């Protein structure tokens, strides 16, 4: 009887305490290495090197306005191009037969598994003005050489190249799950192919589009590698600016944190607006 009781008690103890305590190491780890560092960014952003509170970091941000505008403009442009190129591909892939879909997905993911620095660097060989492969090909056709390297256009090409799979994959995964009978119903009710696409497929694939847009926009607006390799010295972006304050010539983590904080806030507002917009659309579809 006594032994039985002990077994029951220990079982109760196990059930109540054991499983939950398993998350404790994780909780501590995330607090120390995720939450505290984010608080540090905020703390550094509002202090000066001697430790006092200051807003000077933001006062000096005006001279970086052009960098802010360039970053958001190029990231916006890349996102739009990724959407225009990626949506049809996702749609076409979803129509392939099962085995081909797998092959196509593998072909899209394979480059992503390779070091993105190496892939970006390879564009240099293609785009270079004097001896680049593209211009030598154009020369054969008798077309005047294009000056792309070290311009914003090269940065956009690099971004689209690197982030296009991030647009294709989420859209594909939504379209591939669309219920075929919904489309057939639209056809039976007399919708033309264009109408089926515009009024059924497109609205239903919107969640994929929205997550694709964030997955492209966030890394594009914060990159510093692509602009450094393909953009030359005149096309610096926000990422370059932040990197310079931490590891580069202009060491000033306080200013760097302030810039990072502003970027983070703008991106968060952007994502919030996107999600609101998405919710609205979904409701419209439901009705």
């Amino acid at each position, binding site marked *: 009887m006594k032994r039985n009781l002990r077994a029951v008690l220990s*079982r109760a103890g196990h059930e109540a305490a*054991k*499983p*939950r305590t*398993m998350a404790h*190491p*994780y*909780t501590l*780890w*995330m*607090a120390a*290495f995720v939450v*505290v*560092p*984010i608080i*540090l*960014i905020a703390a*550094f952003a509002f202090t000066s090197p001697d430790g006092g509170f200051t807003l000077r970091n933001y006062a000096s941000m005006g001279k970086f306005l052009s960098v802010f505008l360039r970053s958001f403009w190029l990231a916006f442009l890349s996102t739009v191009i990724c959407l225009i190129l990626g949506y*049809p*591909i996702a749609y*076409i892939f979803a*129509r392939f037969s099962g085995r081909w*879909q*797998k092959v196509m997905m*593998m072909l899209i993911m*394979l*480059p992503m*598994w*390779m*070091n*993105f*620095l*190496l*892939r*970006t*660097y390879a*564009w*240099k*060989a*293609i785009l*270079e003005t004097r*001896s680049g*492969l593209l211009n*030598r090909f154009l020369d054969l056709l008798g077309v005047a050489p294009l000056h792309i390297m070290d311009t914003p256009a090269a940065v956009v090409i690099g971004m689209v*190249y690197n982030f296009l*799979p991030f647009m294709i994959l989420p859209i594909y995964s939504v*379209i591939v*799950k*669309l219920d075929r009978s919904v489309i057939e119903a639209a056809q039976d009710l007399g919708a033309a192919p264009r109408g089926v696409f515009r009024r059924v497929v497109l609205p239903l694939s919107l969640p994929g589009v929205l997550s694709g847009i964030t997955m492209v926009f966030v890394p594009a607006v*914060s990159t*510093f*590698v692509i602009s450094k390799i393909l953009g030359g010295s005149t096309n610096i972006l926000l*990422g370059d600016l*932040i990197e310079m304050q*931490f590891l580069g010539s202009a060491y000033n*983590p306080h200013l*760097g*944190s302030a810039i*990072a904080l502003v970027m*983070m806030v703008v991106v968060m507002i952007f994502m919030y607006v996107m999600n609101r917009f998405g919710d609205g659309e979904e409701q419209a579809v439901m009705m």
Partner: protein
Amino acid sequence: MTGKVRLQGKLYTALILLFLYAPIFVMITFSFNASKSHTVWAGVTLDWYRELFSDKLILKAFYTTIAVSVISAAFATLVGTCAAVGLSNMRRRWRTPLLFVNNIPLINADIITGIAMCLLFVFLGGFLKFKRGFGTLLVAHITFNIPYVILSVMPKLRQLDDNLVDAAMDLGCTWQRAFRKVMLPEIMPGIVNGALIAFTMSIDDFVISYFTAGSKTQTLSMAVYAMTRKRISPEINALSTILFVSVLILLLIINIREIRQEEKQKKLLKIGGKI
């Protein structure tokens, strides 16, 4: 959604794939180029491969990358799996904020995660007298790997029937034993998947490593970045070719395994149908 793909669709697919693979083919081709130029062809050579394997800097960076990826993936898998089990047993009031924190490294741009941890390490290093190096690099990798493990284990836990664990305990198992014998085998696919994702994320990472590794430790990505900034050597192309081929082989193995498993399942289903 499957249906006919017209010729235009196939052509368009080919064009996009050309866009995605053009730089990779350029790299592979010029890794065999006899001249140092990465645009003018001058005959076939294997010199760059030879030089690559005698380049101490690159080899050291390669070992660092493998070490940090393996250790961080293993540790993150352990912590993440335990956390997922713990979280799924928690009351919602506690679980929701913890899962929100879990999403922070996933949503934030890499550069934000990188500089945030850079600040922490510099700040702590001032007090505790340490410098950024392999240790801080490892901590950073574990930190951004844990969320991926949790995200791939949680769904498996949700699918798990709670009654199974209860039944095991009613039959006399302690909780630990029930966990080991019943729960763990059920969620194993999620754990393996999480470990694989964590490993590839580690291998692929550049930005976070760049801010947390300090000046003495270098991962392969960092070595490549340093190369693109300073001297430009076709060794880079040789390295990419090797990486590309190994990833290709790895993916083929995974896919073939998947197809085999599917066939096995089909067979089992057939047998099950007969019974």
